[in-house]
């Protein structure tokens, strides 16, 4: 009974927090709630025996997405009061049926949820999946940890394209801001002394933890993306603490960092074709290649996610006052 109790409380609280994220009029608070929801979600992953995903969720899902949203939400603070007031006035067809938009979308959302539940219920009784297939083939993949073997051997092509997505997002952000590097992002000059002190202590530790996670990925939960995310957090902390961080990189170095992993996959794939298919590696050499690929993923993910963080902020405008953005006094 207790065992279920935890799940029920956790699921219930995630749902409540998600609803609060939605309802919260002040954007900054809703973002903080979103991060809280993300952390609770990573607890849910632990409950569902998915430690890798828990790590990724905490690091990327809640962590980095959270700070991206907060960075984007910063400049919003000033307009928040006006926006809240305007919230009531809606436009177009919504004006003639005030609140119609809400009712209709609420109905649609509930309908979708109900349909989803029905679909879940009539999934076939006995579970069907690829667990045994993965178990049998894992030996040939060169790593002991199932998720890493799937991610970096059986479906390495997907991971490659996924790294491509990350690279493309970075390219897109650079194109949107019409710049080749992030030099123009102003790092905060007059930050707090305590922050710089924290940075000095945390950064080496962060590199250590990332290395540990990267290394353990081959035989126990961990892995490249999670390690990369931690390094990205370190880079962001550097930037916030007044050091140059990723915006210090020149165009060439930034470009190299961003596309390192994608190019590595291409090279490995190309070599693989000589003795078989694209991206083919097995057994001992497999493990070496996977480790190499994971290293490039760590570096590229870190640089890319830090670059995306810089991109979310304003390029030209200076953000110094934004750092001390405070939630405006309770309005409305």
């Amino acid at each position, binding site marked *: 009974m207790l065992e279920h109790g935890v799940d029920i409380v956790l699921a219930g609280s995630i749902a409540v927090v998600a609803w609060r994220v939605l309802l919260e009029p002040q954007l900054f608070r809703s973002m903080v709630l979103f991060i809280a929801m993300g952390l609770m979600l990573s607890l849910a992953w632990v409950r569902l025996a998915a430690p890798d995903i828990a790590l990724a969720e905490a690091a990327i899902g809640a962590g980095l997405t959270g700070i991206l949203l907060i960075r984007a939400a910063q400049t919003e603070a000033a307009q928040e009061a006006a926006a809240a007031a305007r919230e009531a006035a809606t436009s177009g067809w919504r004006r003639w049926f005030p609140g119609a938009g809400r009712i209709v979308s609420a109905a649609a959302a509930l309908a979708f949820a109900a*349909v*989803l539940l*029905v*679909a*879940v219920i009539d*999934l*076939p009784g006995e*579970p*069907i*999946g*690829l667990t045994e*297939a*993965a178990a049998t*083939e894992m030996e040939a993949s060169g790593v002991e940890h199932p998720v890493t073997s*799937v991610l970096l*051997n*059986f*479906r*390495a*092509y*997907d991971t490659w*394209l*996924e790294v*491509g*997505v990350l690279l*493309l*997002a970075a*390219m*897109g952000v*650079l*194109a*949107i801001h*019409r*710049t*080749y590097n992030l030099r123009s992002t102003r790092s905060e000059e007059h930050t707090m002394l305590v922050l710089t002190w924290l940075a000095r202590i945390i950064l080496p530790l962060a590199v250590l933890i990332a290395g540990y996670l990267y290394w353990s990925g081959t035989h126990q939960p961990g892995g490249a993306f999670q390690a990369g995310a931690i390094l990205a957090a370190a880079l962001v902390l550097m930037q916030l603490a007044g050091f140059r961080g990723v915006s210090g990189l020149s165009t*060439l170095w930034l*470009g*190299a960092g*961003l*596309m390192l992993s*994608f*190019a590595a996959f*291409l090279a490995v*794939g*190309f070599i*693989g*074709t000589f003795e*078989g*298919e*694209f*991206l*083919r*590696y*097995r057994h001992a050499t497999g493990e070496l290649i996977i480790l190499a690929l994971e290293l490039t993923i760590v570096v590229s993910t870190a640089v890319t996610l830090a670059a995306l963080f810089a991109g979310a902020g304003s390029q030209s405008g200076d953000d110094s006052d934004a750092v001390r953005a405070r939630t405006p006094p309770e309005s409305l």
Partner: protein
Amino acid sequence: MSSPFEWLIFLPFAGGVITFLLPGKSRPWLALLLTVGTFAAAWWLASDVWREGPQGYALGGWEAPLGINLYADGLSALLLLTTSAVMTLASFYSLGYFSREAEASSWTEARAFVPLWLFLLGSLNALFVSRDLFNLYVALELLTIAGVALVALAGGATALRAGMRYLLAAFLASLLYLMGVALLYGEFGVLDLALIAEAAEGGTRAPVIALAFVFLGLGIKAALFPFHAWLPHAHASAPAPVSAVLSALVVKAAFYVILRLWVDVFADSVTAPAAQAAGALGAAGILWGSFQALREQRLKLVVAHSTVAQVGYLFLLFPLLTGVGEGAWRFDAWAGGVYHMMSHAFAKGALFLAAGTILYAYGNDQISAMRGLTRTLPITTVSFGIAGIALVGLPPSGSFIAKWMLLTATIESAQWWWAVVIGAGTLLSGAYVYRLVSAAFTPDTLPESIRPVPRVMEYASLILALTSLGLGLRAAEPFDLLEVGAPFSMIVAGVGT
């Protein structure tokens, strides 16, 4: 690198990476070189498919259930050829299009354009040969992000807003699709299309709700009628070569996935009412797209709205295939639909490139401003006229044959109302093409400032337009290629490499 699949995937992405780092002006030329290389790879794949039937490829050496398979039959070979051809000509066009701003600010559109452009090509290739539900998701996502970045490249409030709408719609659509994939994985425990097709045969295990999610997501990406609002401004405000490729290829990629799932994989699970609903939405799309195209004042917006109409046309295919019993005409309908996709790709590409040239020369693309076009830009007028003919589906063009096949199917399957819709679609497209073409015949009060247009831009759209006519005259080979591995024949699981 002994198989065309490898080259098809390797070339564009390798090009994207190299051009991303390579400084300097040589980028558009490298892009052109790589698109031509990809065309050669597509030709190589097509000849393999033509000689030896459908081709398979197991990535990383891992066979179907665990690993990801690539697969190419007549349909994907043909679409790959179309993709690389249109992309090559659009790259050829972009040589001229981006040359004008050489002296502009330190950041040039051209430098940022090329890597995104090659990634777009790479993701299209990856999508057309993919054989795995989740792999399709990642390819679609790559396509979306490249597309949004390219739309936002034009800068300015309208382009950014259009890019935002496009991204929001596509992001939601991807998540709906992924939800569908999750349910399908729960049902079949496998991600490979061939294995799912085998399991889903006979319609005993028909996960209707999962399919609903998948088709809803893909419908939004393909700009099916009620979900088309994001398309017009996104395609109209992008730089000219981008809007040509978006309308000609990217929208079709989502439709290709629907077609592949609907006809090949879940042929027995899709119901007749669903097909009729898809047809009805398609018909509504035709009417709405044409109606908007008739009202619009800006040239590129008219062409973008016509894309919504033509996509609606494609969805007429489904009621002819499902729930009408076994019939020889089903191949006609299917081949007709695919052929319409191809010839529309070329015609729409030419139309958008020509519109881009006019915008480039006249500075604005108001239809009323298109005075004396025959005098100032004769070649563009010719390509505009030919592309218009191909769009309406008048005889020498490929879409005439497509319309012929679709009409045959509607009559043989005794669904008259679709014939009426096809007729109405033709006349409406005739109406808005007339609007554009007649503007070119207005008396020659020459506008004051005409910016000289690099020849390469005009010839690129002309060649595209002529190809869409060529499709009409030389239709025998494409149809024979289409018959290789055509549906209505059971797909053998784990096709040999």
